[in-house]
């Protein structure tokens, strides 16, 4: 469980990143963290795991204050960063050195993931490509079985088969005790995994809503709809966001939805009229 209360943060140049954000993220979900470049997605993840400290407000993760970086807390958190930062050793050395630090580490799970990614654990990490190093990091992250897993652009650098493998692994990985937060621009790679959206915009968390709740309020349909909340020209005509007044099921197009929020910031107010939750 992650409790964020009145969080504000800025870097040394006093340029504000977050202004009075509050949220409660619970276990058993894969959160998709979206936002434009520079809005603070990575900063948000760093505040949750304690790499950065709130200027005002509090962050509490699994009952711990992340900024204290207590070892009990750290052994139950793993952060897969966009830049792969692994030591230049063999994968076996890396595994043997660091796996004892995570009490729930599953070595056979690690080996099976590595095999699925087609990476040999006898290889030296420094001789691997960026994508292969990413696979090693993801394999290690999943094998730690931490209750909080943070991922920043996890599919960056993965080849197409590996992205498919990644989706399968993540779908099997999540459980009622685990929280996964994935920050990404490549939403198409993981849109079927996410069940809860977090959207950052202009120093605020403008959206914190499950896809289920969103799907009850809006639907996505191609065609021409003059009363659409939002329309975007696609390859096969317009793609539209419409109010879901008739409780119709439709495939939730996260990318279209995010574009709508980004291009028309006042759209959330329109959503409010259909009893939509936000954090403004």
């Amino acid at each position: 469980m992650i409790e964020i209360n009145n969080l504000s943060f800025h870097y040394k140049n006093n340029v504000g990143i977050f202004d009075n954000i509050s949220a409660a993220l619970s276990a058993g979900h894969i959160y998709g963290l979206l936002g434009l470049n520079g809005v603070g997605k990575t900063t948000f993840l760093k505040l949750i795991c304690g790499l950065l400290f709130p200027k005002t407000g509090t962050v509490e993760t699994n009952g711990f204050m992340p900024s204290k970086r207590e070892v009990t807390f750290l052994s139950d958190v793993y952060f897969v960063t966009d830049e792969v930062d692994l030591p230049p050793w063999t994968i076996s050395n890396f595994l043997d050195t660091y796996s004892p630090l995570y009490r729930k580490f599953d070595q056979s799970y690690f080996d099976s993931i590595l095999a699925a990614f087609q990476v040999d654990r006898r290889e030296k990490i420094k001789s691997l490509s960026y994508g292969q190093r990413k696979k090693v990091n993801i394999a290690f992250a999943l094998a730690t079985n931490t209750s909080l897993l943070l991922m920043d652009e996890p599919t960056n650098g993965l080849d197409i088969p590996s992205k498919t493998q990644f989706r399968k692994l993540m779908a099997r990985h999540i459980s009622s005790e685990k929280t996964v937060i994935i920050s990404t621009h490549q939403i198409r790679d993981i849109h079927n995994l996410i069940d809860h959206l977090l959207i950052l915009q202009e120093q605020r968390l403008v959206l914190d809503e499950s896809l289920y709740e969103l799907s009850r309020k809006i639907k996505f349909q191609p065609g021409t709809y003059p009363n659409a909340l939002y329309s975007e020209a696609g390859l096969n005509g317009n793609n539209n966001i419409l109010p879901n007044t008739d409780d119709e099921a439709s495939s939730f197009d996260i990318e279209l939805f995010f574009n709508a929020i980004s291009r028309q910031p006042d759209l959330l107010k329109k959503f409010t009229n259909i009893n939509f939750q936000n954090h403004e």
Partner: protein
Amino acid sequence: MNKHVSGIRLVIALKELWISNRILVYSFPLIILFCFAIYYLWPGGIFYEKWFNPKAFSTKEAWSKALLATYTTQRVFILFIIPIYLVICTKPLLDRLNKSERTNLTPITRLERTLGLTLFVIGITCLGVACFTLYDHVIVAWFNKLYYEEAIRYLEAQGDLYPNISRQTVLFPIQINILGIAFMMILLLLPLYFLSLVFFRKNSVILFLGLLVIIMITLAFFLRWLFAHETSHISIPIQGVFPLTLTILLLASYWYLAMATFYHKLKEKEI
């Protein structure tokens, strides 16, 4: 606050340093030996001349005279390879502590990291000093076997009834107190270096060297002023159990305070 030190995590902290630097550590004794070779075979030195230019010392007396007149205590400066080696070994870890998300989220407490780093550098320093001492004694023993008798005969031929060879020549090893001073100087500099790496995010080594120069200049001015203005006849003994114990306590306190600052700085570090 994590005050409890786990043996497993401490071993892992040391293992990190060991795996990253094992080739450097294995080659360290060879590097010191190489430094000795460079010292003794430096062009222009008596050994260089003897082995590469035999005509320079055509008689045994000429060689003995040169041997007794050449002071070689400067070979103690070979020990400066130790801090250079320590910088090479520890800078990658200290850079990661400044910048790496993975390193700072690894479940190892800052106390264990600080202890691991301390043990590692003390270990390397002891290894360096031990290798230096061993090589110095072996080389001196070898030179004594080759040249000691000749040197004594030369001095007796000069009319010296009680020949006394200077301890500063190559026929005597570096004195233990000089080694001790060099060892302490290295240990004194290390905490300052660690603090520089965590306080100065950019150009840390250059700023550390700059800080060192400032400290040395300040110390030199202070000592010069002190000796220029000394009027007291009180002398402070530097030998004996009490002053030695006091020196060790002061050193230990300095180390503790510096590494405690290092530990707290790690705690406050945002990545």
